[in-house]
């Protein structure tokens, strides 16, 4: 693997870019691993990377039924923020935002993290009260977030319509300046490259069909399309399909898989300097470095594994965007798609041990997983390596649905994340 630096870039530029070597090999499975990670998205690849880089465990396979980064990692709207209400969530997501700041340097791979700011618009008195409560709670937790007047919102993001006569007038906004976006594919590629360089096998197009267990109930390995692979530990990070994978080990999860749609416009010159979210009208928007507006909203309402979603939701989303940004109402949309998100009842993730010995799960990220990729991967790797949760993910147990100690971000935000 060639390290990226000014010298290697220059050298390859003058030699016609013919000297670059592959970033990671397409591996075939070995008979046995210390850890098998199911799911080669950002969270799974990241966990393998941190296991290798920080815990000295390098005999690892990351197995995916498709291409790496081909699931929700490649399907999200790349928004990164940590302005969550509860202490547990604020710690988890802000840990991630901390890691985002230097992730490109750590991985020697440009993930194009851009802390362009995330502005959440308030349209009703209830919004104003709720967002101000968030601002105060965040600041007490050391998470940056501040209140903007409508005029300040307009100055921060000129395309916003702040007319008092609009259907959903802007009454202010909460701005997290350290938040922003990153290049989603590059996150998967960067972690894959970093993990592979430390000896991790990345096995693509090889579905895990079952988790196999020893007579004492502990994990024995995984059955795959390419045969049985023995493993001391198995870590599942399969987003929309966690229910199916974990069911093969007799672990039931409190998840419902639903399509989350996104769409992009035709590319235009830079016009949109930040990320804007509006919970009341339910849409969010940013502009990619290619110039496309990247637009999303909440999930479709029903359980589905079709990576497609329904048009009524898109219509609703576009109506909201046209209302808040009238300047965009003649823009043409280029394409839309959906990812299958696994949603928990309290809209907080589950990261930790399971009732099965040596089986770990990182699931339930719902509609908000991308932003958490580095933090989630980091604490998941810790949990796998030490067989105990990191203090940050300790509250995010599967057991909380038995004890009732929920982390109810669903009630806190009343919106998809």
């Amino acid at each position: 693997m060639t390290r990226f630096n000014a010298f290697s870039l220059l050298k390859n530029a003058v030699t016609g870019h013919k000297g670059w070597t592959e970033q990671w090999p397409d591996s075939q499975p070995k008979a046995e691993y210390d850890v098998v990670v199911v799911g080669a998205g950002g969270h799974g690849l990241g966990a393998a990377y941190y296991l290798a880089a920080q815990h000295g465990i390098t005999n690892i396979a990351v197995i995916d039924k498709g291409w790496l980064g081909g699931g929700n990692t490649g399907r999200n709207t790349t928004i990164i923020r940590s302005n969550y209400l509860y202490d547990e969530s604020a710690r988890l997501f802000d840990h991630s935002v901390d890691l985002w700041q230097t992730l490109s340097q750590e991985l020697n791979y440009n993930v194009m993290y851009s802390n362009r700011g995330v502005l959440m618009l308030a349209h009703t008195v209830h919004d104003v009260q709720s967002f101000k409560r968030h601002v105060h709670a965040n600041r007490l937790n050391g998470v940056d977030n501040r209140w903007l007047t409508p005029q300040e919102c307009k100055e921060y993001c000129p395309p916003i319509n702040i007319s008092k006569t609009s259907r959903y007038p802007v009454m202010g906004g909460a701005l997290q300046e350290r938040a922003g976006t990153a290049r989603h594919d590059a996150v998967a590629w960067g972690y894959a490259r970093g993990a592979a360089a430390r000896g991790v096998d990345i096995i693509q197009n090889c579905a895990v069909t079952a988790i196999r267990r020893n007579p004492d109930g502990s994990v024995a390995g995984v059955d795959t399309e390419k045969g049985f692979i023995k493993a001391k530990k198995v870590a599942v990070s399969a987003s929309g399909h966690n229910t199916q994978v974990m069911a093969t080990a007799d672990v039931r999860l409190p998840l419902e898989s639903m399509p989350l749609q996104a769409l992009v416009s035709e590319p235009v010159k830079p016009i949109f300097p930040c990320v804007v979210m509006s919970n009341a009208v339910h849409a969010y928007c940013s502009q990619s470095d290619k110039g496309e507006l990247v637009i999303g909203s909440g999930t479709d309402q029903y359980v589905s594994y079709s990576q497609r979603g329904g048009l009524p939701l898109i219509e609703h989303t576009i109506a909201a965007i046209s209302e808040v940004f009238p300047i965009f109402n003649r823009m043409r949309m280029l394409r839309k798609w959906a990812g299958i998100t696994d949603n928990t009842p309290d809209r907080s993730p589950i990261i930790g041990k399971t009732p099965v010995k040596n089986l770990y799960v990182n699931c339930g990220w719902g509609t908000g997983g991308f932003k958490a990729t580095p933090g989630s991967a980091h604490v998941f790797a810790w949990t796998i390596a030490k067989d105990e949760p990191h203090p940050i993910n300790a509250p995010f147990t599967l057991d909380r649905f038995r004890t009732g100690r929920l982390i109810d971000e669903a009630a806190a935000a009343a919106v998809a994340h």
Partner: protein
Amino acid sequence: MLLIHCPYCDETLPEVEFTYAGEAHIARPENPSEMSDDAWQQFLFMRDNVKGDHFERWRHLHGCGRFFNAVRNTVTDKFLTTYKAGAPRPDLAALKEGQK
């Protein structure tokens, strides 16, 4: 756009008239005070999240307002049938035969 048949109105109508109401045939506990935490967890939170033919509830919110049950394939999103609340689970094999 899904088209959904309301078994009460006996009409097939667009999805926007309906709201999804989760997995069907989850019976409320007979004796709540005798339930263990494990049983509550299963009742309240654990779901089959089926990839395939899924028994689920819908509500005809912007119509008659009533809850009913449906069988829908969660891969194709195609409805196999809808039926009134309280009716037993339809026989899946017979339904699939009818689709051919």
